[in-house]
């Protein structure tokens, strides 16, 4: 098995891919934490049953879903470009996630 940077690189998850994934995961996690803090900070001052409270609540949920969508897209894109020249199908990569 080929070694890269002291860490054994398997067939579908090498060190470079791991670094990219950790970068995206930490970035998304930071954005989620920031969104959660802002959303809950606003909701602290707003009654949840009012119009503004409903809007803030749904905005926070949709922002969460959006960040997760972007993270999923980035992860799949990373694996696609990692394996586009190999014979590993993208479906197998996606399922192995």
């Amino acid at each position: 098995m080929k070694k890269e940077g002291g860490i054994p690189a398997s067939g579908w998850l090498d060190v470079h891919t791991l670094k990219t994934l950790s970068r995206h995961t930490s970035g998304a996690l930071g954005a989620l934490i920031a969104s959660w803090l802002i959303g809950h900070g606003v909701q602290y001052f707003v009654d949840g049953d009012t119009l503004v409270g409903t809007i803030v609540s749904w905005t926070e949920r949709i922002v969460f879903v959006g960040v997760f969508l972007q993270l999923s897209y980035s992860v799949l894109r990373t694996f696609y470009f990692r394996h586009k020249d190999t014979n590993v199908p993208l479906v197998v990569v996606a399922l192995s996630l």
Partner: protein
Amino acid sequence: MSRLSLSLYRSEFLKTFLQYVGVALAFVPVGIAYGLMVATRGERLDLLLVLLGIGFVTARFVWRRLEVILARWGVRVSEQSIATSVYIVTDVRVAAVARFQYAFLTVATVLTAAAGSKGSVRAEQGWSTVAHTRLLMLTGA
């Protein structure tokens, strides 16, 4: 302290974090629109999916724009490529005129930065490539 801030400034983690914050902000109008819809007409899954699609397209646009903007923060040539960024110009016509010197410096800087990012020398994020490019102009006189 300044080295720490420069390191943070160059961090790919920070740039990715800012890109995800941009994505989160891109979904805020979608969330406001759907929140208004829920408050007035109730929850609708089909509308939610459409709005999520619109938000995702917007987020992709924001992601790319932020990628370009963050890349324009600057590319600093690493120490290894600084050594190769010494140019000796023996043409008197180029070296004699100040405008030609500036033009040559600009071209050399741009070409050096491009070669650094494509070649074996890894380009680093920083403030200025001009400050790290040395131009030696010999007039031959």
